[in-house]
């Protein structure tokens, strides 16, 4: 029975690994609101200087969070009020589908237009911040700028920020998301663990065969 449960768990992990995540802004989600295209062109790393922050997620050490109040812009948008236009410091237009304001102190790198609204409060709202932490600067971008939907407009900008490793901070997640996250974190240990498991399995099998 114990063997059956272990086999079932391994099979479930394999199935979850092969199943795409449905978590919004997950790098393992290939849907329009996922970040799978960004994950393909970027090198992800924990503690990177570039952070992609999803709505509801926060960076407590920098005192920055992404709100859950969706921004709409009835005037300056990409064909849909729910895809508000934003601009960087060089006034390059960027699409921000289903964006929410970033909350925190820092230099604003990207902001929505003056006719954007979150609730009934009018923008512009920051979608990217540069925050000093000790002797380093952390660049925080809202995940909506790099969803698979937004990449049709913002891919050139995404390639620029992917010159450095990025960290993707997502709030919550489905089992597939977490299986991918844990396996990614455990990748240095997967080879020795698999070796150890194989040895133990063969040893137990040989022992049973002898008796």
């Amino acid at each position, binding site marked *: 029975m114990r063997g059956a449960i272990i086999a079932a768990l391994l099979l479930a992990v394999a199935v979850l690994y092969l199943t795409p995540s449905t*978590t919004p802004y997950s790098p393992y989600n290939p849907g329009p609101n996922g970040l799978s295209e960004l994950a393909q062109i970027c090198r992800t790393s924990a503690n990177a200087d570039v952070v992609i922050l999803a709505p509801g997620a926060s960076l407590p050490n920098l005192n920055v969070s992404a709100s859950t109040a969706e921004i709409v812009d009835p005037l300056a948008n990409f064909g849909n009020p729910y895809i508000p236009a934003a601009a960087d410091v060089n006034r390059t237009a960027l699409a921000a589908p289903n964006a929410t304001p970033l909350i925190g102190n820092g230099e604003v790198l990207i902001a929505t237009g*003056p006719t954007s609204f979150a609730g009934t409060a009018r923008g512009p709202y920051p979608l990217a911040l540069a925050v000093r932490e000790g002797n380093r600067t952390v660049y925080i971008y809202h995940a909506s700028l790099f969803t698979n939907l937004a990449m049709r407009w913002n891919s050139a900008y995404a390639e620029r920020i992917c010159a450095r490793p990025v960290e993707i901070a997502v709030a919550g997640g489905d089992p597939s998301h977490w299986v991918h996250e844990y396996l990614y974190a455990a990748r240095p240990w997967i080879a020795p663990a698999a070796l150890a498991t194989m040895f133990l399995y063969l040893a137990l099998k040989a022992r049973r065969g002898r008796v």
Partner: protein
Amino acid sequence: MRRLAVALAFAAVLALAALIKPTAPTLTTPVDLRALAGMVKSDPALLAEAAAFLNQTHLNVTLPAQPSAAPTEMAIGANATAARAGSHVAVSGDLTSRGRPVAGALIAIYLQGRLAALAQTDARGRFNASVYISAYVPLANITAVYVPPPGSPYAPSSASIQLRVLFNATELALSAPATVRWGDPLRIEISQSPPVERQVVVALSNGTSTVVLRTVVRDEAVLAVPTAGLSPGNYTINATAQPKGPWAPASASAQVAVAAAEPQISLRAPPVLVAGAPAPLEVYVEPKLAVATFLGETPLGGYVPLEAPTGPAVVRAVARAAPPYASAQASAQVFVVNPMQVAVAAAALFVAARRLRPRRGGLEEVRREVAEAAGRGPLPERAEAALDLLAKAFHVLGERAGVRYHRTMTYREYAARVESYARDGGCLKKIVELAERSVYSPHAPTPQEISEARICAGRL
């Protein structure tokens, strides 16, 4: 049964996984888009701000119209057919739908495709706007576009007029050396004719980054650009004289190579590095530059990172660039041993070896000890069978008592020690006596006796 258990367990795990839904936050959205559009239209200052935003970002005002929307007609006119660049032109027009004025409509006015102004129609469907002429072409298009807000019953429409623009052409010239040593100032000479005092924007771009400088030029100016902040490589210099009133913009470009000297660097590393231990690397750099070492992409702070995986890896020494020297790197192949990872595999091997080694005190060993204690040569088949039964009995009772049989004990001595662990002491005694008789008596046990002893052994 086992397969059914696997299937049930798998189904249970998948069901649990399916029940756990993503816990991502739900976004709260403003529902009344029409009210928001009304707020935007009713605030002239906000409209001007929005126009500036759209102009800077080169975006158009785009909103989808309803499929059943009523068609609209636009008329546009200006107070002049020709205007000087840098001046304002009054643009006005009407918006009607099936002959009836459309009031309160937002009109975007574009000059040569760039948003120039936003206006709103009055109760008679009339709009007025002042357009700053910032196009330097002989004939400029002025287009008024009606973009209905979400949920509007009207369809979009547009109308255009042409305006003759009067302006003065200007020329800009740029001079820069073909090559400059990295760290030395780059001297850029700018001249323009006719002389007009205005801002010139100079941009140095290498394709990935751009440095922008601004200066005011009348007829000639010299810019000394420090190159220490630039990356070595080929740059394109673009100078653009900004338009000023009737003076048209002008631009010029030139190429320059920022050349860096190559430092000498070499790296010696031991063939094997141990995770968590110091990394004894020898790096030679000429001239003296700051050097950073990496294992793969991970910086080495004198020690090999504890999380470095076991296996082949590349160690790199990177000399940081310092004008006039470019960055340089050397690399070496090493094999990293991570003691923690090796320990896991070693522990597995150890456990495997322990499990695979013949266990002391096993049935075979007891058989051997019982035969050795008999000290006789080959015995008849039935005598061997009696000794085998005794060995099995001693093995079973030895496992229970935790006392192994050894050849230095007589059969009776050992039987006395483990007798209390037998469920049927009489049976043990009977098997011992049969074995003794088999070994020491010339009369071999009968098949009947062997059979009875076998049944008896089952009761132990």
